[in-house]
């Protein structure tokens, strides 16, 4: 399995977008009012900076002993499972609320999981090619929104620009980083399949900066059209924003394009996460065994999603009250576990020097 640089970049891009565009402005505006966009820039820059503490062993030749690899694998698999369940929950709720009102949630979840299985049963190259094909959907959508929104924006809604280093900023940044940018750190694991793994960090930085720009823009548009309070009130603020954007009588109902893009990116993200869970243990599986594992995982996802399902109001309230620091702690665990991949190199060096000493002593004796 090999990915081109471009395919890896697009996989990262889709993972960072996912269904987050549906609700993303809420996370920062809740704490920082109309100045929430600043937290997105700060968080994006922080996410870029973090790449320098991620060991390259994560996506290059792994020299770590088995125990470190297993620990990292378990952490990544658990994290990816959590992200998968959250993604499935958000997308399922969005579709049943906006489009398939009469469809039972469980039926929709099964349909989505089936779709993920069909796409996931192909090789990673296929996934890479698929995201390459769909890459222009979000980009064109966002570009379209930008042009249309510029006609009816009110820049005064962004005033006064105030920045203060306080707990609200920390909460907003923590929540946004945990919910949005950590996905990129998990997807870095797929860097091992990039033809030239030395480019992974550069690709990550470029993608994070691009996604940061999109999210900042989305938040600013939301503030200018809905206002910060209404953005935090609505369940899917960007969807709501798009319902209000129209370009004379030529282009209307662009929220439909947006929904299509969200569904595609979100499903692709779930496929990518499924791959990450499977490859996180570096086990080489036959095609049949892989399918069995995938089916087992997707059944587990079904039960987990049904167990954790809560209405958005409960999820957001949890995120705002406790979620921001719990998720931050979990993210720190992920980053710390990555550091385990550095230790073995030092042990190997040490053991090599010990071996050399023993060999010298042995020679002297002789």
């Amino acid at each position, binding site marked *: 399995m090999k990915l081109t640089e471009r395919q890896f970049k697009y996989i990262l891009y889709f993972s960072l977008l996912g269904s987050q565009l549906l609700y993303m402005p809420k996370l920062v505006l809740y704490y920082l009012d109309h100045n929430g966009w600043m937290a997105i820039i700060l968080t994006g820059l922080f996410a870029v900076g973090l790449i320098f503490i991620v060991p390259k062993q994560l996506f290059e030749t792994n020299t770590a002993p088995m125990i470190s690899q297993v620990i990292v694998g378990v952490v990544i698999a658990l994290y990816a499972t959590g992200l998968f369940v959250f993604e499935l929950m958000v997308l399922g709720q969005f579709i049943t609320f906006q489009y*398939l009102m009469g469809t039972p949630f469980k039926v929709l979840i099964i349909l989505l999981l089936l779709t993920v299985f069909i796409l996931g049963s192909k090789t990673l190259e296929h996934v890479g090619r698929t995201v390459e094909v769909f890459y222009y959907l979000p980009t064109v959508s966002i570009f379209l929104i930008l042009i249309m929104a510029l006609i009816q924006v009110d820049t005064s809604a962004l005033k006064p620009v*105030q920045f203060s280093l306080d707990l609200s900023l920390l909460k907003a940044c923590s929540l946004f980083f945990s919910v949005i940018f950590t996905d990129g750190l998990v997807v870095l694991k797929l860097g091992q399949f990039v033809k030239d793994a030395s480019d992974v960090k550069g690709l990550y930085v470029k993608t994070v900066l691009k996604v940061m720009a999109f999210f900042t823009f989305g938040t600013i548009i939301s503030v200018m059209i809905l206002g910060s309070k209404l953005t935090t009130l609505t369940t899917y603020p960007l969807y709501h924003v798009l319902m209000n954007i129209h370009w004379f009588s030529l282009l209307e109902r662009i929220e439909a394009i947006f929904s299509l893009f969200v569904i595609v990116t979100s499903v692709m993200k779930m496929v990518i996460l499924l791959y990450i869970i499977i490859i996180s243990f570096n086990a080489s599986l036959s095609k049949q065994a892989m399918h069995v594992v995938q089916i087992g995982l997707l059944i587990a996802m079904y039960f987990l999603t049904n167990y954790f399902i809560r209405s958005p109001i409960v999820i957001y309230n949890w995120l705002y009250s406790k979620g921001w620091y719990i998720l931050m702690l979990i993210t720190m665990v992920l980053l710390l576990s990555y550091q385990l991949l550095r230790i073995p190199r030092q042990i190997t060096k040490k053991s090599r020097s010990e071996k050399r000493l023993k060999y010298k002593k042995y020679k002297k004796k002789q």
Partner: protein
Amino acid sequence: MKKKVIGLLCMLLLLSGCYSQTELNEMMVATAIGVDKTETGVNVTLQVLNPSEVAGGTTKTGRPGVSCYSETGETFFHALRRLTRITPRKIFLSHIRFVAFDEALAREGLLPLLDFLMRDHELRSDFSLFIVKEYKANDLLKTLTPIEQIPANKVLNSTMATEEFYGTAGENELEDFYKAFYSEGVEPVLTGIELLGQVDSGSSIESIEQTEPETIIKINDLALFREDQLVGWLTEQQSIGYGYWTNHIQNTVSVVSVNDALVTLEIMKAKVAIKPSEKRRHFDVTTTIQASIGQSAWGDVDDLAKLKQALSDDIKNQMSQCLDRLREEQIDSIGLGQLLYQNQPSVWEEVKDDWDETFQNVTASYTFDVTISQNGQITAERGAPK
């Protein structure tokens, strides 16, 4: 083969596109909703289309283009659901053009009612909100209109025309109300609707068979809100003044007197820049006006300076009338507090808690830059009347 079977099975699941479909002939398209206060809750009136009457073709029977259904309930949503007992088909709300409330409900507070409109997934939020002055929203929805077969369209078209050519009203959509409600230093306003003539006979088809309908729907002036509660009304002049303050004037007219002759000026363009002064509670207002002469008793070009001065005085009068009224009610509907918050946040922090009282003492100084760019098709000087 196995893959094809799985693929086909999945297609069967995914291509069940008409799973929860509702055919057009099974639904009833609502064009407007009216909500009135009752002793036990609310009375909801739906104005729905009669498709055979409004569609083109030869199937028309001479019946009105719309029908109305009313039902009471403890809440807005409750009443709407109770309506299904009397409506012949499933109600489809996605195409409503406006929601009107009676004064009594508006005085109690609109937010509990608007919550349903905001929360419901079937409703788009691009409909307007109106307050019916003195009468019930039910009366408004039942009133038939000539020319426009769908009265809801008449209301919307009149509002848009008033907004575009006179400036006393505006299309206030659901989100505009919410935005103003939640924003610091500004209060919402809504356009009012008045019913003139014999309101009881407005619902009969005979009313619109005459050259002058028995009931006329008039787009009225603006309704003032404190948070979500109606507190009063602006007059016509004050409503135009409000339009200037909030930069909503696209086109309007001013009638001024110069040398004892009335001149009607068309305001082609108006831009108001408001700047909080360094003096506390004072605002510098600079108004740039581009006007043309629409009607004049006599066209003495030497008096252009006087004409400009008279126009400035008239607009200043409208703006100050509006400000005085708002100060009297202690409601900052023109958003001076918001302006202060955006430009001088530290000052706003000091005054925001008692802004309503502070607003009472707000003063403004007006500067005008008037250009009279057009004089119509008459240029010859006729001189003063004999």
